[in-house]
């Protein structure tokens, strides 16, 4: 079956612009996670959804970052007023239930110029 997909695969934007990153999880997976990964580092947790609700958004670095999952499937990570420090690979993962193995998408590489 289809895995986790993320669009776009690459996004180049200018400082101060708004970006949206999309994640399509595996059908039936109730848990969805967003991570950010910088070069040479492990994934850094941003936010976790259980169904439609954000069960834990403690990893979002500041209020410029926001994520939604309105129908309990597709999720969008939104970044306002982008800064150069936001440049990273943004990874999405889903799992059947929280704590089980996660299935990762290929990531979106965000570059803020």
């Amino acid at each position, binding site marked *: 079956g289809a895995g986790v997909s993320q669009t776009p695969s690459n996004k180049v934007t200018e400082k101060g612009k708004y970006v949206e990153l999309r994640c399509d999880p595996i059908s039936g997976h109730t848990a969805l996670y967003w991570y950010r990964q910088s070069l040479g580092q*492990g994934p850094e*947790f941003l936010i*976790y959804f259980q169904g439609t609700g954000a069960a*834990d958004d403690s*990893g979002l670095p500041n209020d410029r970052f926001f994520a939604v999952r309105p129908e309990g499937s597709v999720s969008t990570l939104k970044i306002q007023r982008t800064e150069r420090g936001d440049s990273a690979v943004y990874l999405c993962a889903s799992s059947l239930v929280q704590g089980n193995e*996660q299935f*990762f998408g290929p*990531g979106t590489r965000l570059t803020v110029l």
Partner: protein
Amino acid sequence: SQQGEEDPQALSIQEGENATMNCSYKTSINNLQWYRQNSGRGLVHLILIRSNEREKHSGRLRVTLDTSKKSSSLLITASRAADTASYFCATYNYGQNFVFGPGTRLSVLP
């Protein structure tokens, strides 16, 4: 704060040799998982070991868990060039979320 810490940071071996990577963590866990990542994109799940388990096998992979020492190891036997990747441990506890370590970069030379 970082929960899992892999050791070594980088490892270079010859094809056919065994590769061992270690992960240490700080607090209680429900399970610990190992993932592989090629070329800086999506991670692939390798194996999950629960806190009441001590050892698990999957093909050429062997994972051990010592909750008294808060550590885990991943052994890849008879390594192949295709095993070249970064390997991450991730810890999970109820009510919390996954915490990944910085990873071990494994190079398997033909």
